[in-house]
């Protein structure tokens, strides 16, 4: 990763840290700014008598700071990197203080150990042990889903109007039981119920409960599912991605076409969308605890080359990219664009393959943007997501027909990258 203000601020755990980091990136606040082999370090003057000692490992941009913040990287580490990006000449070479030296040494040793572990062939998991563990988990999940089915039946027998009177603790308790049953995906869906309780028609809540019921039935009939369908079911239930089951994509050439970062409970989630040279869409997911940065990411329209593997699914979308190399920048390839009129059929096909799909990434065009809508030139429109910034969208389209890559969730379209027609190659 090249240190630029954009890539540095992308490391920030939240916008507040980014803003504070920028404010602190003035030399006046840094009595000491130095480099040492593989390290940036400095002293940041705070309000106290003694400045904070800040270090950034240039291998991975991991930071250490003596300030009391629990965020990583903290505002001091961000400011240190910003100062370096602005003018590396300000930093003089000087050996790091002992505490930073030891920290860096420890990191280097841990990195070497994990690389050696990667090179050493993994001991093959004992199949019998694996089967035993899986059987134990399966039992817990079965019991959990059986209890969920009973709970759902009770809800609709009593009536959802009565359910509105229940306390938040009851819904949270149900989510906690799903966690105990090793069904974190179901717990996540259960936590969404309070937000749907008071819809006037009750359709949203009813449909949501229907999705939960579908999970219980999917589990009952899992033996009859295809491998992709089963994988989607297990993903929705909350099982982690099995990296050994990835299917390698044919193409190694990708374009980053959109990034979304959101808070989800105690986690920060980053969705990075890639578009392959042959038009396939891939979704990279990164997670981190709320106060920690997500690590270096990509930027929109960055060209990448690397081996990409799709997670098993009936509608392959989620993927893992290994060894990504920066190959410059690009523009949205118009030849892979879907006309807006075809979006509903595309979404229906995707849902038929994976009924728990939350969103698809799609390149649409030609379109223009208006208040609350992305429209085609035949008079049809898709509602825009509330987070869509209409001024920026219309400015990027620049009165021309535009091509937009974004997320479609069945209700709204969130454009992430827009190119006007003349910029988009065919």
């Amino acid at each position, binding site marked *: 990763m090249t240190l630029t203000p954009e890539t540095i601020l992308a490391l920030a755990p939240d916008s507040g840290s980014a803003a504070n980091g920028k404010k602190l990136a003035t030399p*006046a606040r840094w009595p000491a700014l130095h480099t040492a082999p593989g390290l940036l370090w400095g002293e940041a003057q705070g309000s106290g008598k003694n400045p904070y000692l800040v270090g950034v490992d240039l291998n991975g941009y991991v930071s250490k700071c003596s300030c009391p913040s629990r965020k990583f990287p903290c505002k001091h580490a961000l400011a240190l990197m910003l100062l370096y990006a602005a003018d590396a000449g300000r930093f003089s070479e000087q050996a790091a203080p002992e505490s930073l030296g030891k920290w860096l040494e420890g990191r280097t040793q841990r990195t070497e150990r994990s690389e050696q572990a990667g090179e050493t062939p993994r001991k093959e998991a004992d199949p019998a042990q694996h089967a035993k563990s899986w059987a134990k988990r399966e039992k817990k999940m079965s019991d959990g889903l059986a209890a969920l089915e009973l709970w759902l039946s009770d809800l*609709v*027998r009593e009536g959802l109007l009565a359910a509105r009177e229940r306390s938040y603790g009851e819904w949270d308790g149900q989510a906690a039981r799903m966690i105990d049953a090793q069904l974190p995906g179901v717990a996540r869906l259960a936590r969404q119920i309070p937000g749907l309780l008071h819809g006037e028609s009750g359709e949203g809540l009813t449909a949501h409960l229907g999705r939960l019921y579908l999970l219980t039935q999917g589990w009952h009939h899992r033996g009859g599912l295809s491998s992709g369908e089963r994988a989607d079911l297990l993903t929705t239930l909350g099982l982690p991605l099995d990296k050994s089951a990835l299917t390698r994509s044919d193409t190694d050439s990708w374009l980053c076409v959109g990034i979304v970062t959101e808070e989800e409970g105690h986690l920060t989630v980053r969705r990075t969308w890639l578009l392959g040279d042959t038009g396939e869409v891939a979704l990279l997911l990164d997670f981190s605890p709320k106060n920690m940065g997500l690590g270096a990411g990509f930027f929109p329209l960055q060209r990448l080359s690397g081996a990409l593997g799709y997670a098993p699914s009936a509608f392959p979308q989620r993927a893992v990219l290994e060894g990504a190399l920066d190959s410059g920048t690009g523009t949205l390839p118009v030849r892979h664009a879907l006309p807006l*009129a075809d979006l*509903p059929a595309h979404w229906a096909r995707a849902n038929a393959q994976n009924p728990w799909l939350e969103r698809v990434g799609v390149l649409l065009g030609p379109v223009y943007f208006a208040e609350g809508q992305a429209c085609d030139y035949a008079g049809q429109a898709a509602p825009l997501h509330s987070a869509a910034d209409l*001024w920026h969208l*219309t*400015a990027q389209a620049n009165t021309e027909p535009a091509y937009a890559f974004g997320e479609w969730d069945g209700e709204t379209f969130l454009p992430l990258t827009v190119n006007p027609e003349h910029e988009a190659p065919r």
Partner: protein
Amino acid sequence: MTLKDLAATALRGTARAELPKPDSSPLGKALARVQEGTPEQLLLARVALAGLHARAGKALDTAQTSPPTALPPATNPLPVRMRPLFVALLQSPAALMTLGSVKEQGWTLSAAQVLNLKEFIRPELWPLLDERGKAILDAHPLHEAWEKAEAQAQWEARLEALWETRAADADAGAAQTLELWQESSVEKRRDLLAVIERQLLPADLPLLKHAEKDRSGEIARRVRELQGHLPGPLQDELLALLPQAVVKKGDQLKFKPFELPEALGTAKVGVYDDSDLHRLLGALPFSLLLKVLDVRGEQLLQAAEKKHWQLGRQLKVQRDRERPEREAKASPVLTAKDAAQWFQSIQQKGQHEQVTFDLLAQSLDPAAEIAAPEPLPFVLPPAPTMPKERRLQWEENIQTQHAQRQAEAEAAWRSLTDILQLRREWAAGLEAEK
């Protein structure tokens, strides 16, 4: 049977409501094929299918707005090599000169380029937008801000012209002022009143009489007071009243009760900047007050301030208004020596005025060599009297302060030289684009 129908049953509960019967629509037929055990299971299974159908089968809406009018692309956009410099200079004190330079070159900006400036968007960017940009951002707050700024600039130019007319021809100037007064909003009438207060003409009397009943109480009061500034019966009456209201006893001035003439209206009770005394003293020229009372300006100001802080402030404003306008001096030509002196003031006293920095950044020759300030040696000043236990802390604080000041001076030097570097690169870019 739709999701809505199923939801209605779910809301009431299967213990109280029958499940709706599937209809003959394709969805209805699919739902009819779903057969589960208990009514609850049946409802949930059908809801799962109907919900999926609703989610996956949503049709597109109708576009509510026509496509934008296709406009021709920009013919003279800001050159690519100049863009990063432009963005950097726009965030510096050299912003206005940079904008002027772009305007001179006839370069234009796109809407996306302007929006990407984020917190550095300013009204002066509007005229630099290309045709497409102006169409796209027509309803953007930037356009309104520009129109307001333009209108204000035009108004100020009009006031300037009025001032010159009043100076050249009193009658014509007074007549023009009255005409403008009658068509102006209350804000603009305040601006006109400020012109009249600085340049009061006998020919302004009709306007002052006309404005006595202005809807703004503040304007009404000021025009009444201004009538006392013109020689005439009102001024005579006030001058006769003054010694009764302000009594000199040795070096002291005492304020005594008096009856305010009707012509000055009625002071508002409980308002901090209004009283009979405010009105009486406000209704006479400052110089005349001093002459009649036979006091020095400072003496009167101090006595007024002692009486009420706002009365003192009012008299200061009156005094300053009567001072001759200073000739607008041409901005001094600043040199590296001025910069060095400024760095030194930071190092010694910690004085880091943004105004001085902005002036240096704008007016220094960009090719000037600005030497970095050498850190000053630390000298412990004489310690004030204090307990011994605090002495060490005081010394540490002084040392820290000294170190901070040296660092701030160095930071100021870096910031200044950075801006001069940007200005050099900008100038070189302009040359290269010729």
